[in-house]
């Protein structure tokens, strides 16, 4: 196998809370290959979004910083890269689509200008060239009558259209990696389906690798090749998507998959109660306690889980899980 496009090694991201510094992401390693789609799942507060931001050097500093590890993009370490180096990579090589299409666009510029600006900054295109490029991008993301729409301000567009504009901006420079942080959470299912069609088409066309952050297991199943589950700032399970859906190994992964209501075409008259993961994600200041971070919410927690944190161990081709239960099963 050739070297991965992106290789994250032992990443640690810390935030200063009052006088103490707490690691909100710890020991995180993962690879992303060319043209691959990696899903990152977990509840809010598990470190998914901050991990994504760190790939673009966007961890707010202070109070946060990447406190250990490497982020190797085509062999170049982005940790400690200069702002100038990062600016060459942001947008050009790695770009990001944020969750909120309402707040991520500038309300006082037309969407055409916002797309064209990206083209001007990164390619040094002339105004006319950049404007043409903006219209081309709007057409690519499936916005009808792009010549007129380019003159619209964000508030004149629907949520789905705004998200398409965000995607157009992210794709102007044909990045090698597209990071999408809950790109469809604010959208209707029909629009979500259109956005994902678009992602697939673009992947075919420009061969971008995608990192998709989501908490929707259905989306993961449809869109990704490989999944990484995060809990309390750590990777607790990783593997190909098929195994993740059919045979989730970590109790947290199993909980995430079974707590969502499933749409059925033959619903019963009295649906059973949903599976519940009791409790909530630990707050940052509760991190770093001994034992497995999930133990207080885990139905299978044993004595050992409360004192010793399980390390990630391989359980087959490309799969890994951090749970003491695996050892019990193996023994």
């Amino acid at each position, binding site marked *: 196998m050739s070297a991965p496009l992106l290789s994250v090694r032992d990443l640690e991201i810390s935030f200063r809370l009052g006088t103490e510094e707490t690691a909100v992401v710890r020991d995180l390693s993962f690879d992303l290959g060319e043209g691959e789609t990696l899903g990152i799942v977990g509840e809010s507060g598990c470190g998914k979004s901050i991990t994504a931001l760190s790939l673009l050097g966007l961890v707010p500093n202070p109070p946060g910083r990447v406190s250990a590890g490497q982020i190797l993009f085509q062999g170049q370490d982005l940790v400690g890269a200069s702002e100038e180096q990062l600016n060459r990579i942001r947008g050009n090589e790695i770009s990001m689509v944020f969750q909120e299409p309402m707040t991520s666009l500038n309300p006082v510029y037309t969407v055409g200008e916002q797309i064209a600006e990206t083209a001007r900054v990164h390619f040094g295109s002339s105004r006319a060239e950049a404007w043409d490029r903006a219209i081309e991008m709007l057409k690519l993301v499936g916005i009808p009558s792009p010549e007129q729409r380019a003159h619209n301000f964000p508030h004149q567009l629907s949520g789905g259209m705004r998200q398409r504009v965000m995607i157009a901006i992210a794709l102007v420079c044909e990045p090698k990696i597209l990071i999408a942080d809950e790109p469809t959470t604010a959208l209707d299912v029909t629009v979500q389906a259109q956005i994902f069609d678009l992602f697939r088409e673009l992947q075919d066309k420009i061969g971008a690798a995608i990192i998709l952050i989501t908490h929707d297991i259905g989306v993961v199943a449809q869109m990704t090749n490989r999944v990484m589950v995060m809990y309390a700032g750590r990777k607790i399970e990783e593997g190909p998507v098929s195994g993740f859906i059919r045979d989730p190994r970590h109790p947290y992964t199993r909980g995430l998959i079974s*707590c969502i209501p499933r*749409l059925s075409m033959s619903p019963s008259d009295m*649906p059973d109660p949903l599976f519940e993961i009791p409790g909530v994600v630990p707050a940052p200041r509760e991190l770093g306690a001994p034992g497995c971070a999930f133990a207080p919410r885990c139905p299978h927690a044993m004595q050992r889980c409360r004192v010793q944190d399980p390390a990630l161990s391989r359980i087959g081709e490309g799969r890994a899980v951090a749970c003491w239960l695996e050892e019990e099963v193996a023994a």
Partner: protein
Amino acid sequence: MTALSVRDLKVHFPAGKGKVVHAVDGVSFDIPEGTAFGLVGESGSGKTTAALACARLVEATAGEVRLGETDITTLAGDAMRRARRDIQVVFQDPYASLNPRERVGAIVRRPLDLMKVGTPAEREARVDELFATVGLRPDQKALFPHQFSGGQRQRIGIARALATHPKLIVCDEPVSALDVAIQAQILNLLARLKAEMGLSYLFISHDLAVVQHLCDRIAVMYLGQIVETGSRREIFTSPLHPYTMALISAVPSPETGLAGSERIRLQGDPPSPIAPPPGCRFAGRCTFATDHCRKVAPVLTATGGNHAVACHRAQDAEVAAARNALVQGAPSG
């Protein structure tokens, strides 16, 4: 008994220059006591406005909203205040719907104070009882909203809605702001309260799986009108309207994997509610639309059981074939 009966409800908003937004445009439905009624549709379909009009948080332009025997659209002053005991609301955003400067015990007690229910001591006891009902500890009454997680805040919102022993609770996207794991906790709570207290819900959601899980009957709204309504079983075993079929087929499912080929695709965005097109409002995005559809508006017509649909082509072979592909292609159970 019917908890809520809505007849030809219209809510129109002025849009300036003499234009009118037809947000809700002739909606009728009944909610039998002790059942949950789901309103689904895309944003802009008018589902939230319809629900708010039912609780009279938005004034109806025309039509009737009967809560038990009373048409609440014509009530005024004290009579309306008394009627509000029977209809309460749980809002979408548990962060924005609780007063940040009030202790949560006082937030839950507020409806009882306003309606002058019982003595102050009885109200306090009722608040304790409500906290226990929704899975909070009575000693948490003295805390402020920011000291709770999103799921706990939604429990507080539910306790407040339950305070006056309402017959009907309007739930406006009550779980869409919550994390998946927390969603399950709140959905189970709502299902348990309905079973234990015989509550009725008017439940608004854009998430079909959530609506299917909780609601006994479902109505699908498109651009201010109901295009299909039926029992949970009717809607999902035999969706009749192409829009319902498109909604169902757009839901990504863990089992179907990289599906999409048999998906019923929608073109473009919904038309403007300021000048809704003549004929069927969905025709512009419908794969099956004919010239007839674009000229003549279909009316909601009963097809047996509780099922009704507003579509000229629902029974045609072409639509039936797409329906069969959808129902059989999807996972069962």
